[in-house]
């Protein structure tokens, strides 16, 4: 009878072991525990309130009692290493295969659904979870209920391989008992592509019956064996049991198993979603503290907690009130509960990132804060869970962006991870400020002295410009009314021109000047800088004196016409809004000693003597003395 089936292939293409084996092998016990416990949590009975219970058992078994193992060993003997690494691995397998009695570990879950549809064998129906679990690697069956789907631990579908990696022969079995009490046994072995009895085969072997379909001679289908094997392989209550024979030696360390359970699943256990029995030692909600506070498992001195933080996490989670934080990836906001504890004794600051199912993903270091004295646990809701799940690496041990293919998603994920650090930093900074009051409670004499010196330095540096906000500097404006000599010299920069005090301007054809007569149109128009005008209002008189000598053209002229525009509070000019005849009774040209005539709202023929012109206005009673003017001269 054939127990193990490998798919025949035309020729060997790949001569290495599956890379994921190596990855899980490096994760050791914790990787194995995480994968199997997480699968059990995913398989919980949805209608049951009872916690999922997982019985972990280690022990010895006679190798002849491992079902069909001689076939696997035969295959192992046919493997050919094509590089030093595979050769070494194969030699190790060959050596281990000779043992008569071998270690095993088994994970049996209770209050779980087990796999369904085993009797359908290899099936395409998504409801036949047996077929998916047993015969397809790298896919996991999606739950019909999306809420359950997002809370699931697994998602990369490589979990089973963690079990293969724990075996010296890369072999694992799974015993299933479904809701109808049907008991089956399946298994997989991860070898390399090999030639066996003149035929090439794939690397993966399945513990299954191969049946030819009647419809086509070459079509075959796997069916599982009814489970009547050795008691180690028995699963008589509903659920799944993983059995790993030829367990690598370092995997049977019971203390390490218990620690791994607590490290990764302390939240599930505290929330009473999970109970784990390790060779008769039960870890559940009521006694997990006894384990984490036991120096047999964890160092109890806070100052020494530099690599393992579980006792801190458990304490933080149980004692602290959660704070709500919101973390964005630039498009969506994700809300988490953060259990945060600040304690000067804590040597390394870490945040346990935990999925709602209760599994810790990562001891996250916050950027630049890895050595700060705090400890925190971060848990989100369903939406956050789904997002975290997309960020996990295949081994569920880190939030990472490296496995993301879509550059946009990758960018958002980076952003999310950065923002997460930022948010936690804010809370940490608050805690530090709270714990370290800056004034009022300490002797600040020295600090005041230092500050004073510092202040002087800062002030001398800051002269000239004051910055209120990084965006909006308040710049000291140079006063252009000062003579040019008094201004700061511009070293090597472009020279500031002295503003022309009398500036020629264009006539505004569109506006009021259109009324000007043709002869006026030929005249040049100049604005007069306020610095060259002296103006005084006394009683019902206003005296205005112009010094026009700075402009040669104007200085040469004997007379000029003067126009007046008003300026509003914003410095905006209103031409012709000021009507001379409405505001003045009389305008007197002091140099000429004569009354001036008005024409087109301008004062006509004002005498200029050596660049000086002076006007006296007699004001009307309702004259607005608060107005501000711009003067124009026409020559």
């Amino acid at each position, binding site marked *: 009878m054939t127990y193990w089936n490998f798919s025949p292939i035309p020729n060997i293409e790949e001569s290495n072991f599956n890379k994921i084996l190596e990855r899980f092998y490096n994760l050791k016990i914790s990787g194995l525990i995480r994968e199997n416990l997480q699968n059990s949590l995913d398989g919980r009975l949805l209608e049951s309130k009872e916690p999922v219970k997982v019985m972990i058992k280690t022990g010895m078994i006679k190798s002849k009692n491992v079902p069909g193992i001689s076939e696997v060993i035969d295959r192992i003997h046919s493997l050919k290493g094509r590089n030093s690494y595979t050769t070494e691995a194969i030699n190790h397998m060959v050596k281990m295969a000779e043992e008569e009695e071998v270690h095993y570990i088994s994970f049996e879950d209770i209050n779980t659904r087990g796999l369904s549809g085993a009797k359908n064998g290899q099936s395409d129906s998504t409801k036949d979870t047996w077929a998916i679990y047993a015969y397809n690697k790298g896919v996991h069956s999606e739950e019909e209920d999306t809420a359950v789907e997002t809370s699931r631990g697994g998602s990369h579908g490589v979990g089973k391989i963690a079990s293969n990696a724990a075996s010296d022969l890369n072999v694992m079995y799974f015993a299933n008992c479904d809701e109808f009490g049907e008991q089956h046994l399946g298994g997989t072995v991860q070898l390399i592509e090999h030639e066996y009895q003149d035929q090439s085969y794939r690397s993966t072997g399945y513990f299954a019956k191969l049946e030819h379909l009647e419809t086509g001679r070459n079509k075959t289908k796997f069916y599982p064996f009814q489970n009547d094997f050795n008691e180690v392989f028995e699963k008589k209550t509903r659920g799944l049991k993983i059995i790993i024979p030829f367990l690598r030696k370092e995997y049977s360390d019971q203390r390490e198993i218990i620690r791994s359970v607590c490290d990764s699943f302390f939240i599930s256990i505290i929330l009473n979603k999970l109970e784990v029995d390790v060779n008769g030692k039960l870890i559940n909600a009521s006694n997990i503290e006894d384990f984490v506070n036991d120096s047999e498992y964890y160092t109890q001195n806070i100052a020494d907690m530099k690599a393992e933080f579980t006792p801190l996490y458990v304490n933080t989670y149980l004692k602290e009130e959660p704070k709500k934080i919101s973390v*964005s990836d630039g498009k969506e906001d994700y809300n988490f509960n953060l259990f945060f504890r600040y304690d000067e004794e804590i040597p390394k600051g870490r945040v346990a990132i935990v999925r709602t199912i209760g599994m810790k993903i990562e001891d996250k270091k916050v950027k630049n804060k890895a050595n700060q004295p705090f400890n925190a646990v971060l848990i989100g809701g369903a939406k956050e869970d789904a997002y975290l799940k997309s960020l996990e690496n295949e081994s569920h041990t880190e939030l990472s962006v490296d496995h993301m293919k879509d550059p946009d998603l990758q960018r958002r994920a980076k952003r999310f991870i950065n923002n997460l650090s930022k948010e936690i930093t804010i809370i940490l900074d608050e805690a530090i400020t709270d714990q370290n009051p800056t004034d009022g409670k300490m002797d600040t004499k020295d600090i005041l002295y230092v500050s004073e010196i510092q202040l002087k330095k800062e002030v001398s540096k800051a002269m000239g410009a004051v910055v209120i906000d990084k965006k909006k500097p308040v710049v000291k404006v140079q006063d252009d009314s000062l003579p040019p000599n008094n201004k700061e010299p511009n070293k090597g920069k472009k020279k500031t021109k002295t503003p022309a005090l009398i500036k020629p301007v264009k006539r505004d054809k569109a506006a009021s000047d259109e009324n000007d007569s043709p002869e006026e149109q030929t005249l040049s128009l100049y604005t007069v800088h306020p610095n060259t005008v002296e103006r005084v209002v006394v009683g019902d008189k206003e005296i205005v004196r112009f010094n026009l000598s700075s402009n040669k053209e104007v200085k040469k002229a004997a007379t000029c016409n003067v126009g007046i525009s008003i300026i*509003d*509070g914003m410095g905006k000019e*209103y031409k*012709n809004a000021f*009507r001379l005849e409405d505001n003045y009774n009389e305008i007197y040209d002091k140099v000429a000693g004569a009354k001036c005539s008005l024409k087109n709202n301008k004062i006509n023929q004002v005498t200029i003597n050596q660049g000086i012109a002076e006007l006296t206005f007699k004001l009307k009673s309702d004259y*607005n003395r*608060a107005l501000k003017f711009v003067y124009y001269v026409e020559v």
Partner: protein
Amino acid sequence: MEIRILEKGYKKNPEFYQDFLDDKIADKEEYFSDETVNIQSAPEFPFYIAKKNDEQRKVLFLEAFNTIEKYYLSSDRDLHLDEQFWHSLLILKKRDFLLETYPEIQEGIENFNNIVVKDFDWENYIYKSVLAAEYISDLVTDETERQRYYEIIIDNLDLYNYMIKYEVFRSKQFVFNILTIVDELGISSLLKKKIVGRSDLATDTRIGRQVLFEFNKNYPVIMSPMMAKEELKELFVEYLGYYTSVEQLGALV
């Protein structure tokens, strides 16, 4: 809520408009600056209020004032008076609301420019509302009184617009004083009247605006924004007298 701040240059950009319609803005890195802003919550309010009758307009403005007062004023002033912040918020977080409330946005980029990425100045409804909420809530603590002042603003929008248009008048005390004076004198509708028969003034001159223009012309010789209300009221009536008969008002002053 985190809001990424848009990089300048998005305004009047047909491609940006198209990406907004296609909901692709958030996916395009080139539209964003390095800045982000975090705010507690940013509920919707009428971001654009135009072409409505007086009653509808009042309801919408009140909603805007009250929402801003409640949810936005607590932020840094630099933030709630920042154009890029508001545009980023509208574009990134309020797209659905905008498309539903102002379906005309989809008709053309002009409407988009006018409703969504409108310049943040006195013509912008968010700007108007932020200043109104800020000024009034700073100066009026009583809730009923505050609502009353909000209504005075809405009843005198023409005057209010003119005040916030000019920096010299954009002072909460001045705006508040002028509104109080207008309310005390009960001259809201008088101030809205067009001035006729004054060829020297620009077209569409209204009494209220012209009175404010007098204040403007006299600034800074007369520091009207710093005056106490009673002082200001005397001047107000004087300037009002340039444009309309104030004898009846005189009895009230």
